[in-house]
């Protein structure tokens, strides 16, 4: 018993000593409790060099945490255990967070670099006048495919996927809105359609695609497509460009019927303690050179017009990832359809998954 008590006491003592040492170290580097900034972002979604630079320039210590789904992020912010100062949700989630009072309005006078952002990406329906959010990256949903494996066949539209030659060649992404949306788009309906009849039609159309579908997968699709496991994948443009940097044979296309246009925006959630620091961080990320460096690292499409000048030309001129305004006008942003409609989408998606070949 005595020995047990002694062991415990030693562990506690060591912990206290270590804690005070970390505290002391942080203070000697100019980081005190009040001068930290907690950033909550998607995994592998920032060039970490930039965090170091921000810390050096401002003396604010950045604590960087990551999440892997909008839903998980929102749950954590709702519970409010951690004081997140900046978060990067997607557009439909921002709409939801505004409605549930989870965001703090931005002070645009502290964000002079906002002028760098392309006007196409400002003042969008999910956040009029950008009261709560600033675009970080944007992109599309489309088809990444391997022309060589398909014998030079070219794919330009969703309906091309129903070709009989493509048996067992398609990897779908495991997302209800993406897949049901693809069904809707192929029938020329809106991605935000909630008409039950249209949704049933879309599901019936998707059922006829089953012979061509190899699997419905998540993030593994990057690995599978790069390894030529299948010739076609439906995915987000950012993932597509990542796959294409692994395997140069692949090509990406935004289908001609239309598709989804998505945004990940920076916001300041209700949990924020260091609101000035958060503004400083957002403004820093909006700087043209910083955004250019970040975009080269992340390889998603940047909404920062001024940054394009500092980026390699072949990146900026790539129509697949920087489509012309005529094309982006045809794309649709997901609206927050509400829980009930989202449940309908997911139920249909489950039914579709259960449809056997």
């Amino acid at each position, binding site marked *: 018993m005595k020995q047990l008590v002694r062991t415990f006491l030693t562990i506690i003592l060591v912990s206290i000593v270590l804690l005070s040492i970390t505290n002391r170290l942080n203070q000697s580097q100019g980081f005190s409790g009040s001068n930290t900034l907690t950033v909550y972002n998607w995994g592998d979604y920032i060039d970490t060099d930039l965090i170091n630079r921000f810390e050096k320039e401002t003396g604010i210590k950045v604590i960087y945490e990551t999440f892997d789904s909008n839903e*998980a992020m929102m749950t954590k912010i709702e519970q409010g255990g951690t004081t997140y100062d900046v978060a990067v949700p997607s557009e439909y989630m921002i709409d939801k967070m505004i409605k549930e009072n989870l965001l703090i309005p931005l002070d645009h006078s502290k964000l002079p670099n906002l002028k760098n952002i392309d006007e196409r990406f400002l003042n969008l329906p999910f956040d009029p006048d950008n009261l709560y959010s600033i675009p970080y990256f944007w992109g599309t949903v489309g088809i990444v495919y391997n022309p060589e494996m398909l014998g030079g066949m070219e794919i330009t539209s969703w309906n091309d996927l129903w070709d009989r030659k493509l048996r067992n060649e398609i990897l779908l992404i495991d997302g209800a809105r993406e897949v049901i949306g693809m069904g809707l788009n192929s029938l020329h309906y809106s991605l935000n359609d909630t008409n039950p009849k249209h949704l049933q039609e879309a599901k019936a159309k998707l059922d006829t695609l089953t012979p061509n579908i190899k699997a419905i997968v998540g993030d593994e699709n990057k690995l599978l497509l790069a390894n030529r496991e299948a010739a076609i994948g439906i995915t987000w443009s950012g993932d597509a460009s990542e796959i294409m940097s692994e395997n140069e044979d692949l090509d990406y296309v935004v289908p001609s019927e239309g598709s989804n246009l998505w945004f990940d925006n920076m916001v300041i959630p209700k949990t924020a303690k260091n609101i000035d620091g958060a503004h400083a961080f957002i403004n820093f990320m909006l700087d043209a050179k910083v955004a250019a460096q970040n975009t080269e690292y992340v390889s998603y499409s940047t909404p920062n017009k001024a940054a394009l000048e500092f980026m390699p030309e072949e990146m900026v001129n790539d129509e697949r990832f920087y489509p012309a305004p005529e094309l982006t006008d045809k794309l649709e942003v997901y609206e927050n359809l509400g829980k009930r409609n989202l*449940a309908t989408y997911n139920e249909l998606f489950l039914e579709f998954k259960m449809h056997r070949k």
Partner: protein
Amino acid sequence: MENKAKFNVYSLPYFLWIVCFVIAPILLVLYYSLFDIDGNFSFVNYQNFFTPVYLMMTVNSFWYAFLITFFSLLVAYPTAYLLTKTKHKQLWLLLIIVPSWINLLLKAYAFIGIFGTYGAANKFLEGIGIGSRQILFTDFSFIFVSVYIFIPFMILPIFNALNKLNPTLIAAANDLGASGWVTFRRVIFPLTLDGVKSGCQVVFIPALSLFMLTRLISGNRVITLGTAIEQHFLVIQDWGMGSTIAVFLIIFMFLIMALTGARKRGV
């Protein structure tokens, strides 16, 4: 008297554990299952469960769980039997158990590589002249990987039962003229039935609610109740429906426990 008091004090942690981590969560699941997606009190989730989608899913889950249990048993029983005949039983047993210490996801990812179009399995098939074929994302790969993962849990109880078996009983059966097969059927198997039962329970019940493997190995071509629960909680955030499915899973598990346990008392 004094003994009884002591017993109570020491069993306190046990009861606290049971209340906090078994009874309370089950009650919470029951509680949540009574609210619809908008947070109103209703039984609509229970009605929903009896629609074709979820009934189909239940049938699917049972069918795959049955197949997984069946093949696990098929492999595990002879293995456990051979193990008891080896010289270094404990060492062999350890070697079988060690892989179960490795993270499940890691193993699943390894199988994606092995079963892939250009993976080791297809290289082998080509080598022996069968030619490459699709293995990943099929029922076969799903059941194979699940069996691989569950096998240690099936072997352990059967091994213990076989190990405890009194060898004189087998000798007696031989002396009385029973052939090897008859000895197995009439003596060995009935005496190790308890091991088989607990093995089946330990495999069947988790197999009923498998979810990560359904996506990684079978590419969402197999949908089980576990997949649906995950989706309801994480994607739709409809905790009510997710909880309702969980309630049914709990009911199924109690039924299975009751069915497989009942005969024990009869013997």
